[in-house]
C-alpha cells in the first residue's frame, strides 16, 4: 500500500464522486431488484450515457452500479422467488422459504449484511493484490496472454451450467459473432458478406444489449411474466446479533474467499461464485438438510459470494485488461471508450484514477448497506411494476443506447438480430454466458496467438518453453480433461 493509495481516498469522498456512487448504487439496486433487468443489462444501457462524463466519474458510476445490481437481486429472490439477477438464483432456495414462513425481514437483513461482508473482504484482496499483480503482468507477452485466455475459456466451459456440449456450441457461436469486419491483426476484411456496414464488425454494445436486454424482454413477451405470491409482512429482526455473527463467521470468510477467487478467474462471474459457495457451505454445514428450506447459512453463502465476485473480477480487469466476468467485459468497453488502457501500466500512469476506483468499490459497498437497509420496502416494490409499461420503456432505452454508441442506424438491426438469437438460444436451453465470454475473449485469443507467432517467426515453441505460458496451458489441459471425464461419467449414469 503506497501513499498514493491512501491519498486517493480523500477525493473520492468529495461531493461529486459521492453523488455518482450513491446514484450508481441506487440505479444498480433498481436494475438488480427489477426482474428481467440484470446488472449487465443495466450497465450496458448506462454505458452510452457515460460517454460524455469525466472518465473517472463514469467508471465510479458503473462500478457502483455493479455493486448495487448484485446486491439488489436479493430482494425479488427473497420476496418473490424470482432472482433479480442470475447471481441470486441460489438465494431463492432459502430466502423465499424464510420469507414465506413470516421472516422476510430476517432473510433480507442477513442477506444484505452478508453482501456487505463479502464486498468488504473481497475489496481487501482487490486493494492488496492488484498492484503486485500488475507489476507481474508486465512480464506477459503475447504468448502468456494467449495461454491465460485459453485457460479462462476452458474453466468457463468446465463450470458452465447445464450440458458441456450446449456450452461449447454457445461459445463457438460467440466466437463467430466476433469474427466479421477488419481482422485485428493484418487488417484484412473478412466475413462481411459484401455489406460495407459490416466492415466494423458486430460492435460490443449492440451485441450485448441485444443478447441480454432485448432477448429477455422477448422472452417475457412470449412466455408472460411469472406470477407469484408476494410476501410483504414481517420486516423485523433485520440486524444480525453477536451470536449470529459468531455462528456465520466461518461461512462468511469462506464464501468471501471463494467468491473473490472465482471472480479473479477471467470470465466467470457472480452466478458461479454463489453456486460454488453455496455447495461448499452445504457440505460443511451441521444441518445440511435445512438447505433449500430456509437455511440462514444458505443465504449467507450465496449473497456473500456473489458480492465478493464483484471486487474479485475487477482484479484481472484493471491489472491485465482481461474481463473477470460478463459485467467486466462491458466495463472493459467503458475503459476503452474513455481511452483508458487497463493493464500493467495503469497503476503507474493513472494512480489517481485506479486507486480512486478501488476506494469507490469500498464506499459503494457501505452506501449499498445503508440504502438497502433503509429502502427495503421501496426497492421490494420494484418487482411489481407492470411489465407491460416497463418493457416498452426499456426497449426505447435499448435502441437509444445502441444508437448513441456510434450514431449508426445499422447497429439497431444488429441489436434486434442478436436479441432474436439470444431468444432462440434461451428457448433452446443454451446458456448465454459462454456466448458472451467467447465473443469478448476470442479476439484476444486470436490476436495474441498471431502476434506471438509473428514474434517467434512462426514457431509455436515459446508456448511451452516460456514458463508462465506453460503453467497456464497445463491448467487449461487439466481443466479440459476433468470436464470431459465428468461429462462422460454423467452421461453414462443416465442423469
Amino acid at each position, binding site marked *: 500500500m503506497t501513499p498514493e493509495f491512501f491519498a486517493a481516498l480523500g477525493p473520492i469522498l468529495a461531493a461529486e464522486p459521492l453523488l455518482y456512487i450513491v446514484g450508481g448504487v441506487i440505479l444498480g439496486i433498481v436494475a438488480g431488484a427489477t426482474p428481467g433487468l440484470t446488472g449487465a443489462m443495466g450497465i450496458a444501457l448506462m454505458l452510452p450515457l457515460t460517454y460524455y462524463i469525466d472518465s473517472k466519474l463514469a467508471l465510479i458510476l458503473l462500478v457502483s452500479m455493479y455493486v448495487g445490481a448484485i446486491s439488489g437481486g436479493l430482494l425479488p429472490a427473497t420476496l418473490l422467488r424470482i432472482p433479480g439477477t442470475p447471481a441470486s438464483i441460489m438465494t431463492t432456495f432459502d430466502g423465499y422459504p424464510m420469507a414465506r414462513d413470516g421472516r422476510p425481514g430476517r432473510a433480507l437483513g442477513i442477506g444484505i449484511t452478508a453482501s456487505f461482508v463479502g464486498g468488504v473482504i473481497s475489496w481487501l484482496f482487490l486493494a492488496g493484490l492488484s498492484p503486485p499483480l500488475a507489476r507481474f503482468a508486465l512480464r506477459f507477452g503475447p504468448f502468456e496472454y494467449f495461454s491465460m485466455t485459453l485457460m479462462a475459456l476452458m474453466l468457463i466451459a468446465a463450470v458452465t451450467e447445464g450440458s458441456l456440449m450446449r456450452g461449447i456450441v454457445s461459445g463457438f457461436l460467440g466466437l463467430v459473432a466476433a469474427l466479421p*469486419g477488419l481482422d485485428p491483426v*493484418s*487488417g484484412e476484411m473478412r466475413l462481411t458478406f459484401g455489406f460495407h456496414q459490416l466492415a*466494423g464488425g458486430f460492435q460490443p454494445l449492440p451485441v450485448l444489449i441485444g443478447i441480454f436486454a432485448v432477448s429477455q424482454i422477448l422472452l417475457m413477451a412470449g412466455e408472460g411474466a411469472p406470477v407469484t405470491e408476494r410476501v410483504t409482512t414481517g420486516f423485523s429482526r433485520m440486524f444480525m446479533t453477536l451470536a449470529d455473527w459468531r455462528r456465520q463467521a466461518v461461512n462468511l470468510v469462506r464464501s468471501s474467499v471463494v467468491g473473490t477467487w472465482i471472480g479473479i478467474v477471467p470470465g466467470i462471474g457472480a452466478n458461479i461464485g454463489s453456486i460454488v459457495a453455496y455447495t461448499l457451505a452445504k457440505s460443511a454445514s451441521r444441518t445440511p438438510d435445512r438447505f433449500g428450506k430456509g437455511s440462514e447459512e444458505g443465504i449467507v453463502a450465496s449473497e456473500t459470494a456473489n458480492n465478493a465476485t464483484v471486487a474479485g473480477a475487477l482484479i484481472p480487469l484493471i491489472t491485465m485488461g482481461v474481463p473477470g466476468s460478463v459485467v467486466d467485459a462491458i466495463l472493459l468497453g467503458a475503459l476503452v471508450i474513455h481511452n483508458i488502457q487497463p493493464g500493467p501500466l495503469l497503476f503507474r500512469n493513472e494512480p489517481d484514477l485506479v486507486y480512486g476506483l478501488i476506494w469507490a468499490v469500498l464506499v459503494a459497498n457501505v452506501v449499498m448497506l445503508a440504502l438497502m437497509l433503509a429502502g427495503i420496502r421501496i426497492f421490494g416494490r420494484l418487482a411489481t411494476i407492470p411489465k407491460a409499461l416497463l418493457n416498452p420503456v426499456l426497449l426505447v432505452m435499448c435502441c437509444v443506447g445502441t444508437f448513441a454508441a456510434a450514431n449508426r442506424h445499422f447497429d439497431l438491426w444488429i441489436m434486434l438480430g442478436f436479441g432474436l438469437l439470444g431468444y432462440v438460444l434461451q428457448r433452446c436451453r443454451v446458456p448465454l454466458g459462454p456466448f458472451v465470454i467467447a465473443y469478448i475473449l476470442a479476439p484476444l485469443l486470436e490476436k495474441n496467438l498471431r*502476434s506471438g507467432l*509473428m514474434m517467434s517467426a512462426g514457431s509455436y515453441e515459446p508456448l511451452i518453453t516460456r514458463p508462465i505460458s506453460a503453467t497456464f496451458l497445463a491448467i487449461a489441459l487439466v481443466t479440459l480433461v476433468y470436464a470431459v471425464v465428468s461429462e462422460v461419467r454423467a452421461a453414462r449414469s443416465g442423469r
Partner: protein
Amino acid sequence: MRTFRRFTSALAIVVAAGALAAPVPAFAEYPEKPIRFIVPYGAGGASDIVARIFQKALEDVLPQPVVVINKPGAGGSLGAREAKDAEPDGYTVLSTHIGLHTNRLMGVADFGYEDFEPVAETGTIELVLTASGNSRFENVDDLVAEAKANPDTVTHATNLTSVLHLAALQFMNEPDFTFRFVQVGGGGPRKPHMVGGQSDTSFFSIGEVAQEIENGDLRVLALMSQNRSPFLPDAPTIKEAGYDYDPLGVSFWWMVPNGTPRDRIDFLADSFEQAFAKPDVQKALADRAYAATFVRGEPLANRVRSEFESVKELVERFDISK
C-alpha cells in the same frame, strides 16, 4: 440580433488578435444551422480530442455551434464514407488524416482524398522510434548494425496497415534492412508490451510516451522528423542519425465532400485559422505534444496529394496492398 452580436464579437477578436486572416464575409447567410464535425474514430482518441478542442474554440468564431459526432469503425472508413455521401453544403466536415490514404491503398475503403476538398490542417503528430529502457540498442546505429547483420530478427511492435506500419517500412527502406513485425495494436496495448521488453523497437507519438521516456521505461532512438521537437529537445532526429528523408507523421486534416461551394470552404478555412491562432488552442495542442502546423488552400491540397503518393509508393514497393 444574436447573430449580429456574435459576429461583432468575432470580428473584435480578429481585430484584437491582429489576425492575418481575411475578415469573415459580412453578409454570408452560411452558416445558418449547426455544423457537424464527423470524427470517424471513437471518443477519447487523438482525432476526437482535436475535434473537441476546435469545437470549443470555434464557439465564438462561428455564428452557429459545432456538433462533434463520433462514427467509429473499420479504421475510420465508416465515418468517412458517411461524410463523403453527405450533402456538399458546408454543414458536414470530416476530421481525417493519413488513415484516409492507408484505408484506400490497403483495400479497406473504395474511396479516398479525391472525394473530398481539403479545408485545413491543424496540427501534426510526430513519431518517435523507441526501445525498452534496458534495451541493447543505445541509438539508431546499434539498431541498424544488428538488423543488417541478422536480417529479420530485430522485432518491431506495430499496428499493421496504420501509419506506424508505413513509417517502419519507410525507415527500413533507407538503410535497407528488414524488421520482424509484431502486431500489437494501438498505443494502449503497445506501451506495456514495450516497457516489459517483449519487442525490440516500436514507434509512438511523442505525447503518448512522454512519461515513460522521462522515467526511463522507454528509450528514444530517434525522432522521426527533420527538426528537433520542442517537446523532446534531447532526442536526436532521424536526419541527425544520417537518414535524410521526409518521415511520415499524422497531420489532422479537415475535409468537406466534393462539390462544396468554394466560398464556404474558404469561410471554414478562415474560421479554423482564427481558432488555431487562439492561445488556448495552441496550449491544448502543445499539452499533447502535437506540432503546431497550419496549412490551407493549394499548399494543403499538394501536401495531401504528395502524402498519398509516398504511401502509394511504399505500399507498392513492399507489395502490401490487398
